[in-house]
């Protein structure tokens, strides 16, 4: 049958589709003919940066993706890691940056919807959501609107679907003024022998569409996410989809019920590039083809063209292949949940997707060409020429404060360090009765019902460090994330990442990307943590200004015994406070430099991988042997802020502490420098010998630096008072600061 042709495709049309003329020539060469407009639309989304990873694939291949626990690495909807007892966790983090900047509520909401579908598509009930959000300066005119919109979007969508949002991170920096980041993580739990993949196998099996009807929303969303913003970006609002969390809830329940049947062959959600992407990818994985009849697709409005139906990114839609003969049972199940559903196609043996509308063939494309045919680019990379100057910092130019009180107050009230309770109280973080570790400690901790186990999850990235040094900055993001996990009592078992960068066509950005991925690969190999899923978001630029490189990582940890779950706050007066690790004279890239001097300079703190690993091991040993009652990682704001947080973050009763620190370095570096590989612990005096013995055996520098008690945080350095603040004052500052920016 002849494929319907369409008007001449001009260079203008090719360009409007975000394809280069080189790519268009490649399409013609590989196809052996001129594509019609619908087919060109398919190439434009499937070969977009967002779907094809054409700039990043070359580098991503270098990441370690295997391990004894890994059941599924990158390439499917999400990664799967075995946790024993016949159970596995499925998780992934994904960006929804561009839509969230244009329309924050819907952009963030549909970001949550998309990542949820990635998880339950594979058979898992979503157990928890986390997010990593980046906004511009707190007092930038747009920040308040964007922050409120994004939080509202996440809240409305997550809460309605009944999946708790249990943690995350929020940073503010001028580099995100024109391009915010919304990265959403989801984890689900599944029996390890009941994992579903996006495969369209079994010739003759029916292909069923179910979920919401297809509308004209979101056409070319994937292409939008693959270009920079300019002054006209506001006009792209119609490409942002609108979410319907209630339908998502129905989809979750219907899918989980469906997957109890033994006649489900393969299933995939319709995310970026909609029906097109799921059709081609499902056929691609199985090495089959699909015949699709668009006239059977449930539609929201009359008169939609094949082009529109295929490229629509309407939300809450799924595609499932079932065994032949089971279509009626499948349709009855979807009716029970009041979902639209229709048999729209059939699996064929030839690896070609043929799409029909009212009997006319409108698309005829080889699967492999569409799925794997995009260029594999090794884009040129070059170190930014100004980086050397930025990395240089002369500490003698930085005046040392005589007293640390004011600095500590300023840091606790800075938007990056202040308590985020204003945000997480808008998320239902308790629903489904698994959240053992509520938001507000180093990592979220979830029990695994029906076992003694628990899971710890943390997301992290200090993009300032990554800007100053993308290789070590990324390594620090991983190290810190793992530190958060071990502080909660978890052993890291897998990692997922969301790599947010600027325009990869610029060699400086490509250099940042290559360095970051190289750093990520090396540190994950060293820590033996597999990268099981991930997402790349490029073109995060507005008017040529790129964001700092922001490789957000999320690490999942396993607690064999959930009673080992540990929190960051001091528990009882009289307990001793100990510090693991070394404090060096480092101020580069610190929150201190930024808050006090408005400077983002120097080099990020040094990372000693061997020491870092020993600190993780020691922390886990202390927790599993019940020797410590609190553990908190030192990160932004250094030891001073970590101490204050351990005093004030107790949900009911804050505690004071008195510290006596010996130091040969600048006082500001000692208290507010951000040296890596440090964990603050507290423990009953009786355990002192055992804790110190552990440090000796594990070769971790360790010192008892003070005692919990009183109403104030008092820090003496070399027997001279450097900080004295009432904890009630500190708590009030820390709790109230964020609200002053958002109201």
């Amino acid at each position, binding site marked *: 049958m002849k494929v319907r042709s369409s008007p001449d495709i001009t260079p203008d049309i090719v360009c409007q589709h975000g394809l280069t003329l080189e790519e268009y020539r490649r399409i013609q060469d590989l196809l052996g003919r001129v594509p019609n407009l619908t087919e060109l639309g398919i190439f434009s989304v499937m070969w977009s940066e967002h779907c094809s990873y054409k700039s990043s694939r070359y580098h991503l291949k270098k990441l370690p993706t295997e391990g004894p626990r890994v059941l599924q690495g990158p390439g499917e909807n999400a990664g799967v890691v075995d946790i024993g007892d016949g159970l596995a966790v499925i998780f992934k983090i994904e960006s929804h940056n561009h839509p969230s900047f244009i329309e924050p509520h819907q952009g963030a909401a549909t970001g949550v919807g998309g990542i949820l579908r990635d998880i339950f598509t594979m058979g898992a009930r979503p157990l928890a959501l986390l997010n990593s959000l980046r906004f511009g300066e707190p007092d930038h005119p747009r920040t308040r609107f964007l922050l409120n919109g994004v939080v509202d979007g996440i809240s409305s969508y997550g809460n309605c679907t009944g999946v708790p949002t249990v943690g995350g991170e929020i940073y503010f920096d001028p580099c995100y003024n024109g391009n915010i980041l919304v990265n959403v993580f989801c984890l689900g739990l599944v029996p390890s022998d009941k994992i579903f993949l996006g495969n369209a196998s079994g010739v003759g099996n029916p292909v069923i569409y179910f979920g919401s009807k297809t509308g004209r929303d979101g056409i070319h969303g994937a292409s939008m996410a693959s270009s920079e913003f300019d002054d006209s970006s506001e006009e792209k609002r119609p490409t942002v989809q609108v979410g319907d969390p*209630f339908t998502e*809830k129905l989809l979750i*329940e219907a899918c989980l019920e469906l997957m109890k049947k033994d006649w489900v062959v393969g299933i995939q959600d319709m995310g970026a590039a909609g029906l097109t992407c799921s059709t081609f990818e499902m056929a691609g994985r199985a090495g089959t083809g699909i015949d699709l009849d668009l006239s059977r697709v449930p539609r929201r409005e009359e008169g939609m063209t094949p082009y529109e139906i295929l490229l629509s990114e309407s939300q809450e839609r799924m595609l499932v292949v079932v065994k032949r003969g089971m279509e009626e049972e499948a349709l009855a199940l979807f009716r029970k949940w009041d979902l639209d559903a229709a048999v729209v196609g059939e699996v064929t043996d030839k690896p070609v997707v043929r799409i029909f509308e009212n009997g006319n063939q409108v698309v005829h494309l080889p699967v492999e060409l569409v799925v794997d045919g995009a260029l594999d680019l090794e884009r040129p990379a070059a170190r930014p020429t100004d980086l050397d100057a930025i990395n240089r910092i002369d500490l003698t130019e930085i005046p040392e404060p005589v007293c640390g009180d004011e600095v500590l107050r300023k840091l606790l009230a800075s938007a990056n360090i202040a308590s985020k309770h204003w945000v997480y109280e*808008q998320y*239902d973080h308790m629903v489904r009765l698994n959240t053992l570790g509520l938001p507000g400690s180093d990592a979220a901790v979830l029990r695994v019902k029906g076992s003694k186990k628990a899971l710890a999850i943390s997301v992290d990235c200090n993009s300032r460090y990554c800007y100053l040094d993308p290789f070590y900055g990324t390594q620090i993001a991983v190290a810190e994330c793992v530190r958060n996990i071990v502080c909660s009592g978890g052993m890291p078992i897998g990692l997922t990442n969301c790599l947010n960068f600027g325009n990869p066509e610029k060699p400086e950005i490509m250099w940042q990307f290559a360095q970051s991925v190289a750093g990520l690969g090396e540190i994950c190999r060293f820590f033996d943590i597999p990268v099981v899923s991930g997402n790349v978001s490029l073109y995060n630029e507005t008017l040529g200004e790129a964001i700092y490189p922001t490789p957000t990582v999320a690490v999942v940890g396993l607690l064999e015994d959930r009673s080992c779950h540990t929190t960051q706050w001091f528990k009882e007066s009289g307990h001793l406070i100990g510090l693991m690790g070394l404090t060096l004279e480092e101020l580069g890239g610190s929150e201190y430099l930024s808050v006090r001097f408005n400077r983002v300079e120097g080099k990020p703190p040094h990372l000693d991988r061997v020491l870092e690993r020993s600190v993780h091991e020691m922390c886990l040993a202390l927790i599993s042997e019940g020797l410590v009652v609190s553990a908190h990682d030192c990160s932004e704001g250094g030891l001073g802020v970590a101490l204050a947080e351990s005093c004030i973050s107790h949900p009911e009763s804050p505690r004071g502490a008195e510290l006596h620190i010996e130091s040969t370095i600048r006082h500001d570096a000692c208290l507010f420098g951000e040296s890596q590989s440090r964990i603050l612990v507290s423990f009953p005096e009786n355990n002192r010998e055992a804790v110190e013995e552990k440090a000796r055996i594990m070769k971790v520098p360790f010192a008892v630096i003070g005692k919990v008690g009183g109403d104030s945080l008092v820090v003496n350095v070399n027997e001279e008072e450097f900080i004295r603040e009432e904890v009630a004052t500190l708590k009030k500052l820390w709790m109230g600061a964020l609200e002053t920016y958002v109201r």
Partner: protein
Amino acid sequence: MNCGVVVFPGSNCDHDCFHVLKHVFKLHTEWIWHKGGQDLSRFDLIVLPGGFSYGDYLRAGAIAQFSTVMKEVIGFAESGGKVLGICNGFQILVESGLLPGALMQNHSRKFICKTVLVRVENARTPFTQKCAEHSVLNIPIAHHQGGYFIDPEELRRLEENGQVVLRYCGSAGEVTGEFNPNGSVGNIAGIINAGGNVMGMMPHPERCADPAWSNLDGQLIFKSIIHSCQNGVSV
């Protein structure tokens, strides 16, 4: 004792209520599907759980009042059966007319999820008889429309009849605006019908009833119901 948990398509605390009734209190517990058709007369307790019944894009519970199952639940309540509506369940009870008043958007116009304190105003109900009179419970809330409203005349009647069961308060039991999380009239967090068999509350007792957590204040609500089903109200 037989318990039923109603499942609207958008219920999301249904599993939590089911879990607490069945696995914590070891009660016989069944699901009740929203499309109706089940005989409810065998149940001693029906729970309307939290969630977003039919999406609640309109007022929370506004659509649920027209569901088949609610017609059956109303019949069950009218014949004296015990009904506990938690959060969205409370909103549905109010919309269906089983309880008076209305639940409005929180005065912050934001969703609020946190643990709050409530004072037991009436410990002589089947839902609170295991609590001490005026004792203070630690219970989480999680809602967007929890501001209870009723006109002054009806409020006076509720108060006089002892139908106000729970009020938001401070740690010493002080009922002041400072401790009112959502703008409810009179800090009201939970009420009961005149017949004493239908209770609605915004806080989630099922979220503090599983021994995996240290706070077990929610157990008092369930223990009260169990006791009254087995022995009647003993106060």
